[in-house]
């Protein structure tokens, strides 16, 4: 009734190719942005911003990165955590070696550093495919984490191996990292960066390079025959994916935990981000956000549920049940909708167009 594009005529190519061509979608997006930018920082508590919203944004960015590689270019990767660690350590080295460097530049450069590492570990993808490649990317995961833990140069020869992110300001005295930064400032900074990068990603996958990735994903030999260069396409997917993951890792270390440690980017982190894109929907930017929200919120809800219901269960049992329920939910979701939450949303929109009529 209220979600219908009847009467909205497109009179220019630009209007036809807009990301949100329907006015209701534009209004909805504007409302989401308004809530994110105005309502959240004002009404959200410190706990809400720091333990839910910031990790949600960081995970969304990492999930977009992995989705570009796995969802769009079809290269299964289990090394996301390592590329995030690259970004985090590159950001740490950059901010400590060049204290005057603006934090935005440092973050973007750390993404570039992660992209370079991604290209190196993407080289085998030219020969290896499918699950063989997935296992090969585990080499990146284990090797890089070991490297960051063992070589003291990366931690500036700190004795404990755990280092805290130095305080940095965007302009003047507006600190966004370190102890002086308010949760609101950190949240808004993350939000802006993630929004800009997500917009960029959305436009990338709609353009020529995105279509090349999808052609390689659907059948690489056929793509090669119609003139798409596999080398450039696969490596660009690895590079851009690693760039996103690297920036996400830097955000994780600087804006969420405040410390840079290799242990935070182990293999479980890689799997966590893989769940996000599978549950959210492979090959969908929206799916990355939905999946990240689901995976961030689920453990919090699961650990609170027994308390809210007043069940007397020991904490050890709760943690085991949590793991069990998490596994069950993943299987359940895959059975109900293997194409993820993004597909559910699309079906819902189709239904909404007709509502309240049956057809």
């Amino acid at each position, binding site marked *: 009734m209220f979600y219908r594009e009847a009467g909205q005529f497109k009179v220019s190519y630009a209007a036809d190719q807009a990301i949100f061509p329907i006015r209701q979608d534009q209004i909805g997006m504007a409302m989401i942005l308004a809530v994110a930018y105005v309502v959240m920082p004002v009404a959200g508590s410190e706990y809400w911003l720091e333990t839910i919203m910031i990790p949600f944004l960081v995970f969304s960015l990492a999930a977009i990165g992995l989705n570009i590689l796995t969802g769009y270019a079809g290269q299964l990767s289990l090394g996301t955590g390592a590329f995030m660690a690259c970004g985090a350590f590159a950001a740490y080295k950059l901010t400590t070696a060049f204290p005057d460097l603006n934090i935005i530049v440092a973050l973007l450069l750390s993404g570039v550093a992660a992209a370079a590492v991604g290209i190196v570990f993407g080289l085998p993808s030219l020969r290896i495919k499918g699950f063989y490649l997935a296992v090969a990317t585990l080499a990146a995961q284990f090797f890089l984490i070991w490297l960051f833990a063992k070589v003291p140069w990366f931690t500036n020869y700190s004795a404990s191996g755990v280092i805290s992110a130095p305080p940095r300001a965007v302009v003047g005295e507006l600190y966004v990292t370190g102890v002086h930064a308010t949760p609101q400032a950190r949240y808004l900074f993350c939000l802006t960066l993630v929004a800009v990068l997500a917009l960029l990603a959305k436009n990338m996958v709609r353009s020529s390079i995105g279509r090349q990735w999808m052609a390689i994903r659907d059948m690489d030999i056929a793509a090669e025959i119609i003139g798409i260069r596999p080398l450039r396409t696969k490596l660009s997917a690895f590079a851009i994916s690693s760039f996103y993951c690297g920036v996400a890792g830097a955000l994780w270390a600087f804006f969420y935990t405040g410390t840079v440690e290799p242990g935070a980017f182990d293999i479980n982190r890689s799997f966590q981000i893989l769940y996000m894109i599978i549950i959210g929907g492979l090959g969908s930017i929206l799916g990355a956000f939905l999946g990240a929200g689901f995976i961030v919120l689920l453990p919090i809800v699961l650990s609170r549920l027994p308390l809210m219901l007043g069940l007397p269960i020991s904490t050890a049992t709760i943690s085991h049940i949590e793991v069990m329920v998490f596994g*069950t939910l*993943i299987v359940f979701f895959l059975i109900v909708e293997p194409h993820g939450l993004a597909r559910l949303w699309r079906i819902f929109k189709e239904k909404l167009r007709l509502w309240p009529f049956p057809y």
Partner: protein
Amino acid sequence: MEGFLSDIFIAPFVSMWEYPVFLVEVLVGGLLVGVMYSLVALGFVLIFKASGVFNFAQGAMVLFAALFFAGFLEAGMPVWLALGASAVVMVALAIVTERVVLRPLVNQPPIVLFMATIGLTFFLDGFGQMIWGSDIKVIDIGIPKEPLEIHGVLINSFDIVAGVTAGLLVAGLALFFHYTKIGRALRAVADDHQAALSVGIPLQSIWVIVWSVAGLVALVAGIMWGSSLGVQFSLALVALKALPVLILGGFTSIPGAIVGGLIIGASEKIGEVYWGPALGGAIEDWHAYMIAMVFLLFRPQGLFGEKIIERV
């Protein structure tokens, strides 16, 4: 820098040359550890061959089986009864998995099935530890652990028992696959699902059988790993060691799993002993993956994997 280069390129070989007995000891120890990796990799191969599912839950199944076996032993069962009871548990698990997870996901892309097995991993980890607790359990079924001396080379007798067990298991599986009706059906399904269905092989019961066999292999692996390391959560991480073995040997080859396990086991030990100190130690986490990856660049389908033929 010069010292570092000599530590990497010269010193290891010099020490190998000077103490050949030690080299043989390291090599044999590595080979026998490799056999244990093969045991885990075997379960992966069985399931991948028959159903095309990359079963990430194999490691969790090893832990799950070992937890039940150790739990039954602690409850006072004799060894043979505990073995039988855990075997029944693993078969039941196979039936439930087929019914609840695999059947609704027929015809989904491989990555979805892969994710489902990761979900299964979580479920098994949580479920097993919820029932039996997360304390370290000890499995003692009377395998001797004192070192033996053969021609001046010291070898742990437990490793020999593990090696013989793995050998018997592989021989048994090979006979089962070649000379029984079910084995032939399994090979037919592994070859071509559609063709197997059309000659009247019931796909679903074949899957139950394959998962049961993989469960029993996991039980053997669990008992072996459990007796040497103790039954604890880290047992599930052995699966991560089995993955490079898999890609080295090829996903579809049982001999590949064995040979791959031996190569990975031996090179891991030699790398750790001779090159580990120069590189700062603990290199065995990634060393096997690097070997496997470099190897894959030359043979993308692994040592014994079927040649990948692609058509447009």
